[in-house]
């Protein structure tokens, strides 16, 4: 059995925990990277403790979980680290926009009433997505058989579109006339281009 000095041993143990795909136990360390050295249990424990202390002030920590040791990021950094896995949701479908529009203009409104206007079923997914975004909510139940939920828009909805109240919702007819005219009137053209957020 070879000997190895403590500094090298510490580097080796540290690197092994870092490069292993899973948490690594004391026994696994001894069976793999340390298998040609004579390392006392006490020495190994001392090294692991030292490593824990070394990383205390850093952005990652050495922790022991059921299956062994692993490094993991500081809890407090999570809000920012989450941004590394940022994904963009797909653009909203026409069905989604129409449902939102109907809830905005005709609230409080039941799903059945939306379906009546649109002539097609409104998928639960649409309601779920709009609810999760915080733009619509259930404000009551209509006292008809089945007591369907009544949907209305939220304050977040108003905030997103920079409106102080629903009275700021443009008059749909007037808006459309403007959009049509704007093809000939350059000053109004701007209205056609959706304000990007």
């Amino acid at each position, binding site marked *: 059995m070879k000997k190895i000095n403590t500094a090298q041993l510490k580097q080796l143990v540290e690197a092994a925990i870092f490069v292993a795909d899973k948490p690594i136990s004391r026994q696994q360390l001894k069976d793999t990277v340390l298998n040609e050295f004579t390392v006392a249990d006490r020495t190994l424990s001392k090294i692991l403790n030292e490593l824990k202390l070394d990383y205390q002030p850093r952005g990652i920590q050495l922790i022991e979980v059921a299956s062994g040791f692993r490094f993991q990021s500081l809890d407090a950094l999570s809000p920012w680290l*989450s941004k590394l896995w940022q994904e963009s*949701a797909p653009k909203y479908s026409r069905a989604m926009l129409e449902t939102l529009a109907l809830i905005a203009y005709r*609230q409080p409104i039941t799903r059945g009433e939306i379906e009546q206007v649109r002539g097609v079923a409104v998928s639960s997914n649409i309601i779920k997505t709009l609810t999760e975004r915080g733009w619509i909510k259930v404000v009551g139940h209509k006292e008809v058989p089945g007591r369907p939920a009544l949907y209305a828009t939220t304050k977040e909805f108003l905030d997103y579109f920079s409106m102080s*109240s629903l009275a700021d919702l443009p008059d749909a007819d007037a*808006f459309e006339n403007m959009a049509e005219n704007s093809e000939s009137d350059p000053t109004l053209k701007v209205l056609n281009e959706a*304000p990007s957020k």
Partner: protein
Amino acid sequence: MNSSAGKIQVSSEHSVVGNDASAAATAPVQQPLPLAFINGEALIEKPEDLFIPPDALEVILETFEGPLDLLLYLIRKQKFDITVLPIADVTKQYMEYVDAMMALKLELAAEYLLMAAILAEIKSRLLLPKRSDESEEEEDPRAELIRRLKEYELVKQAAEDLDLQPRLERDIFEVSVSTSSNVVPIRVEPDVSLAEVVLAFSQAMKRAEAFEHHTIAREALSTRERMSMILDLLNNTDYSPLEALFTPEEGRAGVVVSFLAVLELVKAQLIFCVQAGPYAKIHVKLGAHEED
């Protein structure tokens, strides 16, 4: 690949590898002395008897990456200078190897035969007497081959050096650190413009001609908004005083809108009002009046 490279190395140094076969394998292609070649021009002694023990040769031959590799090997083995390529000599040795490959039925790529043809051509051009009337610019027929050999040697060296370069999985390992459990992927919601919402509404309404357009007039809208707000304020179990639904700061118009909203809600049977007696306070609650 290291082991095969090692073999070439060993035989090129003419040392005994420890088994007779491979030592013998190098013998037939050895030339007595480099001094025997002057200017790369021809007159050399006959080679020693060609005897190549097949087993040993096969190993050597299969390590060549092609005719240029084989030529380089022959040149280096004899410590020739690449720039004064002794063409006749190299050609002869080259042909011995090619013959051996054919004899061993090694898969002989067409490239080896092509190279044999090139070597033969260069050799014959060198043998031709120089015509005096030709311009002095006539190039050395070996030049192109020398250039290719130099270039290939460079690539061969580069490949070896690339192999020595520290690389992932072999010399270095990537570190993987897990995130603490409260790291969750962030979902970026799509942007929606108000114009899109308005257009979606008018399109939906156009399709549903049954709907009357006056219902979307501005005044109705604020009543409807108030209806939502009132429903939000109330609950199923407790009564709220009616005046809690009014905000005096909004002025007369606001109170009117709230009152209209309450009437609409009562009409729609979404809320109901109770009054204990004349002039008593009115209370409201979610739900319809129960018919007795």
